[in-house]
């Protein structure tokens, strides 16, 4: 049943940044909750944050990069805010009404919001931005997909807009809470529409920071928006940000980023590689903030359309034959947790009951292979059937797309599967061949993760309509009426109980059918100097600098 109007704010008024952090905090980190709650925030100061990736395009309506959203979140606000529990709260919209057919959303906009160039934020601005996202000329690589079956925005009055869709579209509120559906000043779009991807002062939003300068290959600079007074209700404070200046430095080399942090040249650095976490923990001047990433875990996606993985027994053997507890622990030094479900524990409707339900079991894996008829062995010790060796091809993507030592984890997996007689080959393909083969269903195994703070990501992975060739992520190529029905229904309802039930069943069935082998839960580890207070990560693991301040 669709709900109308915004949900009440139960606990939210009471939620401080500290408690928010506790819910978002993963293992292996020490949150800065205690000290920031007790001390009085200090106004002013300049903070430098070092990150490892530089955005290709800064245009939130075009870019599909996580880093673009993470950086521009400081400059752009959204209609609604999604809190740590996945509930939607007012932000630039004070309330909203959802049409009974889920085909329309009417938002009442907040009064007195201004873009940093002085232009008022109103219904026209919403319409202009949404229309820009779906316009062909924008060539949106992500935001347009968030608007789904968008048909248009109607300006009801200066403070009311109605967004309509051609079919029921429940994921819209979640999409509207992301930075990708944030709002540029209409003046900026008119004057600099084609240049917004280049970053810098042309990118005018309503957020707590103003994008003042960008030097490609080096840094992006932001200054405080002195008029900011419309943070979501669960922010630690209202009014402008504490920091006068925020500088983001692009330091791709892990050791350099870490050295810059430990030597005090930057105050915040991310990511801290798992191998370095222990070193940083021993440094009294550095605090760590860890947050489990939401969305689909990094996983082996098994192509069920290609023999021998069309046989569920072989897939089962792969799932149970990998000693993930040991592999993940040794490759990631205990910083990342092994995964049990296709989605991570911080994703709403995560099914905890899957934990420990499919532990490593070499005997069970061997039995499954016997049952599948792979009973003989060749000279190299690999299983064979009718003279054919049991070989799975799992191509390596080009080196620049491999992160988090996934190659090392891959080697451990290869070794585990060899023990039960499965040969795994890992040819290194160029990017063109990789996409063509993997997305064309010609390889046995694909591997990826997909960040999204919504269990709808399960539809992306397991719905048969979500074809890789069309921008979907279902590289299992499995067609299952149940999975299709559950994920389709989940997309069209706001009923929490129904959604929980559907997504729990989806997670369990995906594991039961061994469509996927979830590997580890990505944990964003942020290092910060002890003088930084109040810094929190949102459910996307993006840092919120609005509440951050510098002590001493």
């Amino acid at each position, binding site marked *: 049943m669709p709900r109308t109007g915004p949900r009440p704010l139960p606990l939210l008024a009471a939620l401080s940044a500290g408690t928010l952090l506790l819910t978002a905090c993963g293992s292996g980190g020490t949150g800065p909750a205690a000290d920031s709650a007790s001390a009085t925030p200090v106004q002013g100061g300049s903070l430098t944050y070092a990150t490892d990736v530089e955005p*290709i395009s800064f245009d939130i309506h075009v870019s*599909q990069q996580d880093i673009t959203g993470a950086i521009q979140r400081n400059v752009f606000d959204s209609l609604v805010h999604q809190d740590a529990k996945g509930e939607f709260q007012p932000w630039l919209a004070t309330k909203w009404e959802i049409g009974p057919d889920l085909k329309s959303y009417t938002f009442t906009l907040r009064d007195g919001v201004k873009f940093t160039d002085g232009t008022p934020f109103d219904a026209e601005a919403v319409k202009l931005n949404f229309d820009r996202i779906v316009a062909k000329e924008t060539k949106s690589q992500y935001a347009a997909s968030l608007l789904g079956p968008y048909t248009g925005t109607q300006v009801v009055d200066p403070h009311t807009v109605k967004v309509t869709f051609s079919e029921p579209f429940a994921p819209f509120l979640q999409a509207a809470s992301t930075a990708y559906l944030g709002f540029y000043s209409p003046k900026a779009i008119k004057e600099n529409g084609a240049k917004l991807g280049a970053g810098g002062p042309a990118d005018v939003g309503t957020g707590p920071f103003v994008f003042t300068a960008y030097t*490609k290959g080096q840094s992006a600079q932001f200054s405080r928006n002195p008029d900011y007074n419309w943070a979501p209700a669960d922010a630690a404070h209202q009014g402008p940000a504490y920091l006068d200046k925020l500088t983001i430095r692009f330091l791709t080399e892990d050791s350099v980023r870490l050295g810059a942090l430990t030597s005090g*040249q930057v105050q915040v650095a991310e990511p801290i590689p798992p191998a370095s976490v222990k070193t940083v923990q021993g440094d009294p001047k550095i605090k760590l903030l860890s947050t489990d990433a939401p969305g689909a875990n990094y996983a082996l996606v098994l192509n069920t359309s290609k023999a021998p993985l069309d046989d569920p027994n072989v897939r089962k053997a792969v799932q149970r034959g990998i000693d993930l507890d040991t592999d993940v622990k040794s490759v990631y030094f205990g910083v990342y947790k092994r995964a049990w479900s296709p989605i991570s524990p911080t994703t709403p409707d995560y099914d905890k009951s899957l934990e420990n339900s499919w532990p490593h079991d070499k005997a069970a894996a061997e039995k499954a292979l016997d049952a599948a008829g792979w009973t003989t062995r060749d000279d190299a010790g690999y299983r064979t059937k009718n003279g054919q060796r049991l070989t799975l091809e799992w191509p390596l993507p080009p080196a620049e797309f491999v992160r988090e030592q996934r190659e090392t984890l891959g080697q451990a997996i290869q070794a585990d599967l060899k023990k039960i007689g499965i040969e795994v080959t890992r040819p290194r393909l160029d990017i*063109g061949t990789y996409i063509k083969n993997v997305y064309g269903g010609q390889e046995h195994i694909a591997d990826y993760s*997909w960040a999204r703070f919504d269990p709808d990501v399960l539809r992306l992975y397991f719905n048969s309509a979500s074809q890789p060739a*069309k921008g979907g992520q279902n590289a299992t190529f499995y067609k299952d009426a149940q999975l299709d029905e559950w994920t389709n229904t989940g997309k069209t309802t706001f009923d929490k109980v129904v959604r929980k039930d559907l997504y729990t069943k989806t997670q369990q069935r995906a594991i039961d059918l061994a469509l996927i082998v979830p590997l580890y839960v990505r944990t964003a580890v942020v290092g910060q100097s002890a003088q930084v207070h109040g810094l929190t990560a949102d459910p996307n693991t993006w840092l919120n600098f609005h509440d951050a301040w510098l002590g001493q």
Partner: protein
Amino acid sequence: MSASDPTVPALLRGTARRLAGALAVLLGAATVAFAALQLIPGDPVTVMLGPGTAATPEVKAQIRAQYGLDQPVLVQYLHYLGRLATGDLGESYQLQRPVADLIGDQLLPTVQLALAALALALVLAVLAAVATAGRRGPARTAGSLAELLAVSSPSYWIGILLLTAFSFQLRIFPVAGDQDLSALVLPAVTLALPLTGVLAQVLREGLETALGQPFALTARSRGLAPAAVLLRHALRHAAASAVTLTGWLTGSLLGGAVLVESVFGRPGIGALSLQGTTNKDMPLVVGLVLLSALVFVAISTLVDLLYLAIDPRLRSR
């Protein structure tokens, strides 16, 4: 020099030949770059967007049409040459800005870095070669070892070592960026060290060969001090081969800058090249290839001119 001077037409002819040669090099580089990008397997738009894109087929079609990628290859090639002929390098697929502007913005920091590294390398190499030429003993051995180490160490590793010592521990220089001169020191040293190693070895060998020549003996027999023989006569001889090498090494500085700029988080062509290649941003890559070709042509011209300055025998021809 009057108009009737017979050297003037010869000079003009020489210049014209040189210009034609330069154009041929540029056209060749442009064609090879275009061909190389055509040879990347897979759909160019899909490759450009990379794995893990949520772009719909409609968006891909839009991008394909806008950049003319739906045209036959020959048409694309001719369009491309036509645009280049008018000096239009096109617009970057990913950064949504004209390639010429992008390169223009990033050129200065790289030129600064390359020049600083080159100057440093030349000074260090001359000092090392002059100090050790014709000598035996531990100093010479230590010098050779240091050169070998400098030549064989990867520059990003040298960079990280220097950063660890002088930035993270001693805190003399800032970690990265292009704010002021102090931020240029470590990257320049990083880039200069391997260069110094190569140059010093070549210079020393040249010096030692020259010192063994009859003219060196003659000069010494006229009562010239050994140091003066070394600096006034032998160095000039040794310089010829070092200049050729320096020319070639300058061309390679761009490649070195890719790593150094990325390690030190500096802006520049190196960082831009890395981004362009990673994202298969064709217009950007082509623009950068043309820039390298241009630098190569300019340097080889410069090297030829320097020969004239160093070796008077070439001028009389």
